[in-house]
Each structure stands twice: as structure tokens, then as C-alpha cells.
């Protein structure tokens, strides 16, 4: 096959472009055969090769004192104290979920769990980050995805402890489904998926291989079009029960030193897992025989076996001669395992079908050979400006609050997280429903906080600033539990980068993430990129850089929750407010517009406010803390009331010019928290705030069942709950 004879259709099928094909022929000094072409096609897909984003991703800060493993492995790892490491990563499953919401979401969860297992860690928590078109039109996607995430997580017995969900027109054709998994491992048992040791065996364990999802990786790297639903095999059906057995068996592997490495099979199946595992060891290669791969179906070709994306499989590198030990462990869990090849030192991936060589490719060509794409970004038209003077003044703050509480973007997420087992493991000390979740580490007093955040409307209005906000908001959510932000995983969901405007968004997004993570000293240790969320070019999504963050608290006895705790406590606003109505939920819900710039963000101030909250929490001065996010101060205050079952009485809000009343109530100035404290703590708290140069103002007094701003509005908890709790049930 020369370039002239390999037909364009064939190339398109494996999602390669003629230029890439030319590089392949040049490097191989021969045309690839069909199996090789398929293997290169999947590994050179955007999904696996990151050819569009790789150069940009290098700009993200990834080092720090606590970092044990940065990007490049199956998941990142940071040290959290007492000899424990937290392993975590987020991943997208947007394209499969668009076509088959339940299974797409379920297998997304299954996939991210295996990444954590591959590091030798026991998964302890899941989170999700979801975006859909508006309800009720997108109900099918929404219900299916939530059921799928629950279906997998509940069955496998890993609690789903947090997440986020937003609704916007831009996601109607392109729902976003990101799943994050957090695991725990002793620092000295942290594993790396490296195929070390020539002659060591490669074992394939778990599910039998079927014709699932052949070309799934390349599928995730193109825009969805009319024919997507026809390319059916790309959708896989998950088997959480099997993965549970696989998980336990892999944990049992920890008891033997016969295992060199464990690598999950994800996108691009066997091809990518073998290539990646060997690719991490300079000079290493691998030999595998597809005829040894246990199959679910008859009539599978070597091509099918190499590209199959059957779920619930792992590759295990085993010391030669000790295969039986490993086999026995899997047998205990009724799992099949098979030796399918071994590690070599020739730098090649050689695929046999029995005696016949069906493919032979240099490992580095597979993993690193894809020519990086250099695209040019052009900034698009700036979004419509917001003229505050033309906004009518607030009429009835109470009624506006009720409408905001009922907005699907702000209302209670209980209808979602009550469908997720968020308690299994006996570790969830701060459950979903407030800010970040907090899990205790048994046997210590350590708590591990975790959250996912991104306000994509901000990113749409200003991708750089929006990405900074995502990091800052995640940090605030961590801090609101009393934990210190530690590290980040990110999932960059964007539209088609071949369009200069989208590429520009990608550049800006990464610049924003990098700046914020540097300033707040939270390295990015793992992540994922999902491009082409761009149904037929008709409806590109907003840039949606989801930030998954973890944090630690030394003693979870000092944790905080969002809800008010005691009658008579002082309720305070920490941080100062400005006329930040640009891109706000208030503007959208009350005035039907998305306009202006996102609120300005002073990262140094963010740091100062966070430090104040942490210091106050540690000294036991606070009874509760909740950050102000979308919907502003008043929505946050209402949530504090509803979550704690207590009202607040406040004097009338009379902001000092130039601050407007609507902005004081509903503006989204960052760097603010609602906290409550007993009166005796007030002097200390005020001192502490002064020392951190943070403004702190009294809002009112906790008590009763009414939220009241004297002379402005009075709302009962019941009224607010009615609005808030029904928002997703329409």
C-alpha cells in the first residue's frame, strides 16, 4: 500500500490523515499492513496521542512537595501524610454517553476506576461532572447518565461522594460526562505501569475479549454526525460485578511480589495498554500472541482482538516463572487470566497470531510518533458587553431568590446524589450536598476532601479567566470543609480545535489553569482532554475545563459543613463584594442574558481568604462555612439555612455606593464565604481576619425558621425548600 493505493476511505476509517500516513511509511520504510494501520490509527487518535494538546499541556505546573507521581502514568499521586498516598484522576466519556447515556456513563466510571487500580491503590471515592441541554428536553440524557453512574458505582461498592451538574443549550447535542476516582495506597506500595524486565510475562486478566467498541478511541476524536449512531460497536456494556472481582483480585496481588506492573485496558484496548506499558521503559518491547487471548465471540480477527475495547480487563506484567501464583489469585475470584506474551528488549511491539507475525511496529512510533498538530488560534468576537446602568433595579429580593433557588443550575442536587451510594466504605464524614465531600482515612485522624468544579459560562465569556475561576472555586470548596487544597486533576472538554476560535479557547484555558494552579500552589498531577464536542459543527460546547481537586485536613474532627448549626450564632460574610453581575446566574434567570465579563479574580486575595478560613477552622472559631458561588451571597446564605434547618435574621441590606443591591445579593464576586460562629469567638475571629487583611462583615443572627432581611423580604425555610428541592424534578 503506498499513499496512492491506500484509499482515502480506509484512512478515514482509522481516523488518520494522508500526512500522518506519509510519516508512518517513512518511519517504517514500508507501508503498514491493515492490522498495523488500525493500531496506529487508534493510538494516533487525539484521544490517545493528545497530538493537538500535548505541547500546550506542558505549560501546566505539575510538581510540588507532595507530588509522588505527576502526569504520564495512569493516575497522579500525592502524599497526604501518615504514609498514605492519594491517587486520583478524572476522565471524560462524553461521546459514548451522547449515544447511549446509561452505558456510556457506566463504562466511563468503570474506566476511571481501573486507572486508579493500576497504581496499586484501592479506589475509595468517585465524583462526577455533568453537563446537559436544558430540561425537560434533555431528560433522557440526564436520567440515563445519572442512572449509569449510579448503576456502576453502587454495584461495585465505591461511594460517589460529589460532583456537579449544569444545564445549558450548548450541551444539548454534546452532553459532558466526566468521572473522577480517588484511591488510597501506602506510599511505598505505589505502583507504576512499566513493563520492566525482559522475559517477564504479560497476562491478560478479567473479561473475555469481544468485538466491543472497535475504533472507540478514534470515535471520540471526531465530531458526532448523523452516522454516529450507526457505528454501533463503539458503545460497550459494562459489567460492574466483574470489575468488583477484578478490583479485589488486583488488591490481592499486593500480597505477592511476583507482579511487576498492572495496566488497565481502556481506549484502544490491548494495543494501547501494551504499547504504553512498554513505552514507559526505554528500549523495552513486547511480543504478544492474539491466539492466546480469551474471546467472547467466534470469528474475531487479529485486528479485532488488538483494537477491541471490551471493558473490565487488565494487563499484568508478571515475573517469569511465577505466572501460576498470579493465576491462582484471579481464580479465587473466578476470573480468567491468560499469558498472552512477554516483555522484550527490542523496542518493538510484535503481534503474532499463532506462528504468524501479523504486526510489528516500533513502540515509540505507536506512543510518540504521531506528528504534533500545530494549529493557530484566533480570538473570537468578544461577548456582548454588560451595561449595568441599563439593568432595572431589584424589585423583590425574596421572589428573585426563590426563582434562583429553583433554577436547575442552582437547585438541590439531592435527586441526583440520593441515587448514588455515597456512604459505603464507612468513611464519608462530609456527604454530598454541601461543598466538597470529606472522607476520613481510617486508622488516622486525616481527612481527604474532594470536589469537581467549573463554571463554563465564565469560560465561554473569557476562557482564561473562566479556567482560573474553576481552580479558585474548587479550592474554596475544599477550604469550606476545613481542608487545605493539595492537588488537581483536570478534564478539558472543548469543541473542535481545528477551528481557530476553539484552538484559541484551548490555549487560553490552559494558560488560565496554569496561572491559577501556580498561584494557589496546587499542582496538576493528572488529567484528560476531550475535544470535538461539537455536534456537526452546529453547536460547539463552551470550553468546560473541569477541575477535580483534593485537599487534606490533619484532624477531621475540625471539619466544617455548610449548614448553620446553632441558634444565636453570628452569621458572617467573609470577603468583600463588588458589582460582579457579568455572566451571573442572576442575569440569566432574571434578565435572560449571558453577557459581560466574569468577575475579576485576584488570586492573591483568594489565597488570603482561604488561609483565614483554614486558620479559623483549625482554632475552632467557626461552626460552619460555605463558599459563595453561582447565585451569589444570598443563594449561599439560603443554602446555609436549608442545610442547617435554621433561619437567619438580618438587618436590611444597604450596600455602600457604588455597590448595587442586586450585586450585593446575587453578584458572584469570588473569594467569599458565609460562615457562622458563636458570639464568644467573634473577637478572635475579627483579629484573625485583620491579620489576614480580609474583610469580614456581620450579616445577621442564626435562629428560627425564617430568612429575613428586615423591610426587604422574609422567606420561610419551607418556601425556600419548595423552590430549591423541586428544581430537577420538573
Amino acid at each position, binding site marked *: 500500500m503506498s499513499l496512492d493505493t491506500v484509499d482515502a476511505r480506509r484512512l478515514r476509517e482509522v481516523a488518520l490523515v494522508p500526512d500522518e500516513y506519509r510519516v508512518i511509511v517513512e518511519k517504517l520504510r514500508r507501508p503498514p499492513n491493515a492490522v498495523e494501520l488500525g493500531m496506529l490509527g487508534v493510538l494516533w487518535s487525539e484521544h490517545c496521542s493528545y497530538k493537538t494538546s500535548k505541547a500546550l499541556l506542558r505549560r501546566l505546573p505539575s510538581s510540588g512537595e507532595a507530588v509522588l507521581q505527576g502526569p504520564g502514568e495512569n493516575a497522579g499521586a500525592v502524599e497526604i501524610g501518615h504514609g498514605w498516598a492519594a491517587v486520583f484522576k478524572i476522565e471524560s466519556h462524553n461521546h459514548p454517553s451522547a449515544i*447511549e447515556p446509561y452505558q456510556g456513563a457506566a463504562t466511563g466510571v468503570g474506566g476511571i476506576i481501573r486507572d486508579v487500580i493500576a497504581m496499586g491503590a484501592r479506589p475509595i471515592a468517585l465524583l462526577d461532572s455533568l453537563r446537559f441541554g436544558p430540561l425537560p428536553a434533555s431528560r433522557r440524557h440526564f436520567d440515563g447518565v445519572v442512572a449509569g453512574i449510579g448503576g456502576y458505582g453502587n454495584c461495585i461498592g465505591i461511594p460517589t461522594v460529589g460532583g456537579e451538574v449544569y444545564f445549558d443549550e450548548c450541551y444539548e447535542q454534546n452532553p459532558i460526562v466526566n468521572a473522577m476516582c480517588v484511591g488510597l495506597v501506602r506510599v511505598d506500595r505505589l505502583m507504576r505501569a512499566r513493563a520492566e524486565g525482559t522475559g517477564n510475562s504479560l497476562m491478560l486478566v478479567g473479561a473475555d475479549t469481544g468485538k466491543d467498541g472497535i475504533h472507540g478511541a478514534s470515535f471520540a476524536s471526531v465530531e458526532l454526525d448523523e452516522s454516529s449512531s450507526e457505528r454501533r460497536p463503539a458503545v460497550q456494556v459494562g459489567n460492574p460485578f466483574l470489575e468488583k472481582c477484578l478490583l479485589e483480585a488486583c488488591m490481592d496481588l499486593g500480597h505477592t511480589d511476583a507482579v511487576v506492573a498492572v495496566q488497565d485496558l481502556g481506549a484502544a484496548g490491548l494495543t494501547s495498554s501494551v504499547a504504553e506499558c512498554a513505552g514507559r521503559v526505554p528500549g523495552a518491547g513486547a511480543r504478544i500472541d492474539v491466539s492466546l487471548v480469551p474471546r467472547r465471540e467466534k470469528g474475531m480477527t487479529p485486528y479485532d482482538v488488538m483494537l477491541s475495547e471490551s471493558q473490565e480487563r487488565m494487563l499484568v506484567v508478571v515475573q517469569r516463572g511465577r505466572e501460576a501464583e498470579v493465576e491462582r489469585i484471579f481464580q479465587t475470584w473466578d476470573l480468567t487470566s491468560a499469558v498472552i506474551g512477554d516483555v522484550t528488549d527490542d523496542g518493538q511491539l510484535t503481534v503474532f497470531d499463532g506462528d504468524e507475525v501479523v504486526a510489528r511496529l516500533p513502540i515509540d512510533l505507536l506512543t510518540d510518533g504521531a506528528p504534533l498538530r500545530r494549529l493557530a488560534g484566533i480570538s473570537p468576537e468578544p461577548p456582548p458587553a454588560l451595561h449595568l446602568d441599563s439593568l432595572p433595579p431589584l424589585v423583590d429580593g425574596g421572589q428573585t431568590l426563590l426563582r434562583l433557588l429553583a433554577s436547575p443550575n442552582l437547585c438541590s442536587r439531592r435527586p441526583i446524589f440520593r441515587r448514588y451510594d455515597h456512604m459505603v466504605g464507612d468513611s464519608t464524614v462530609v456527604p454530598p450536598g454541601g461543598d466538597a465531600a470529606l472522607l476520613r482515612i481510617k486508622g488516622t485522624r486525616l481527612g481527604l476532601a474532594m470536589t469537581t468544579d467549573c463554571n463554563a459560562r465564565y469560560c465561554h465569556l473569557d476562557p482564561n479567566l473562566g479556567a482560573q475561576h474553576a481552580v479558585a472555586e474548587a479550592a474554596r470548596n475544599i477550604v469550606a470543609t476545613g481542608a487545605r487544597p493539595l492537588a488537581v486533576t483536570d478534564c478539558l472538554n472543548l469543541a473542535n480545535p481545528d477551528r481557530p476560535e476553539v484552538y484559541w479557547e484551548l490555549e487560553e484555558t490552559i494558560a488560565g489553569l496554569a496561572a491559577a494552579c501556580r498561584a494557589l500552589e496546587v499542582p496538576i498531577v493528572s488529567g484528560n482532554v476531550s475535544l470535538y464536542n461539537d455536534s456537526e459543527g452546529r453547536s460547539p460546547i463552551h470550553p468546560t475545563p473541569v477541575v477535580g481537586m483534593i485537599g487534606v485536613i490533619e484532624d477531621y474532627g475540625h471539619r466544617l459543613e455548610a449548614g448553620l448549626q446553632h441558634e444565636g450564632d453570628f452569621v458572617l460574610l467573609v470577603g468583600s463584594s463588588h458589582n460582579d453581575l457579568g455572566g451571573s446566574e442572576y442575569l440569566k434567570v432574571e434578565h435572560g442574558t449571558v453577557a459581560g465579563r466574569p468577575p475579576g479574580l485576584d488570586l492573591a486575595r483568594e489565597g488570603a481568604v482561604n488561609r483565614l478560613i483554614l486558620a479559623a477552622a483549625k482554632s475552632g472559631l467557626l461552626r460552619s462555612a460555605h463558599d459563595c458561588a453561582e447565585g451569589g451571597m444570598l443563594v449561599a446564605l439560603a443554602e446555609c439555612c436549608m442545610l442547617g434547618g435554621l433561619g437567619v435574621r438580618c438587618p436590611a441590606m444597604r450596600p455602600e455606593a457604588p455597590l448595587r443591591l442586586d450585586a450585593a445579593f446575587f453578584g458572584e464576586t469570588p473569594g467569599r464565604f458565609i460562615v457562622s460562629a458563636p458570639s464568644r469567638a467573634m473577637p478572635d475571629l475579627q483579629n484573625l481576619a485583620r491579620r489576614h487583611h480580609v474583610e469580614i462583615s456581620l450579616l445577621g443572627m442564626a435562629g428560627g425558621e425564617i430568612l429575613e432581611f428586615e423591610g426587604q423580604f422574609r422567606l420561610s425555610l419551607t418556601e425556600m425548600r419548595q423552590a430549591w428541592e423541586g428544581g430537577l424534578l420538573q
Partner: protein
Amino acid sequence: MKATARVIVTPKPVVNDPQGLTVKQGLMTLGFREVEDVRVGKYIEVSLEAETMHEARERVEAMCRQLLANHVIEDFHFELDHEGGKHR
């Protein structure tokens, strides 16, 4: 006219069927070693009013396409009954 449709929805042949696999293993452990394959699907019985059998068939076909089966991963077929009569 009253009709009853007995709809059977099965996972497509190439689609992974974890339920079927597990039930098969369960049967084997119970000693039913003669079992070669198990597929698990759904059975849905719909009673409906229709003018003619032809109309009933068309309506049920539409129900399957729109709601009862997920065409991405499932196949369906059904039988129609009408006052004791059975029509494939």
C-alpha cells in the same frame, strides 16, 4: 378490538451481556453443565385497543422503536394476540 402484544427485547448478538454470562455461570455451578449459552433480555406485555390487527402491529412496532427497546444495544420482536388468536 383488544390486542395483547408480547414483546421480547434482547441484547444484540455482539453486545456484551453480563447478566447472561453470570446466569450461565450460576447454572453451571448448580450442576447444569449442559448449558452452552444464556442471554438475558426483557419481556413486556402490552394490552391495547386498536381498530385492526394491522393497526395494532404498527402501533406496537412504534412503541418498541420509541421506548421499549434501545436500538443502540438491543433488538426486539413481538407477537400479537387478539381474543385468543395468535399472530406472529
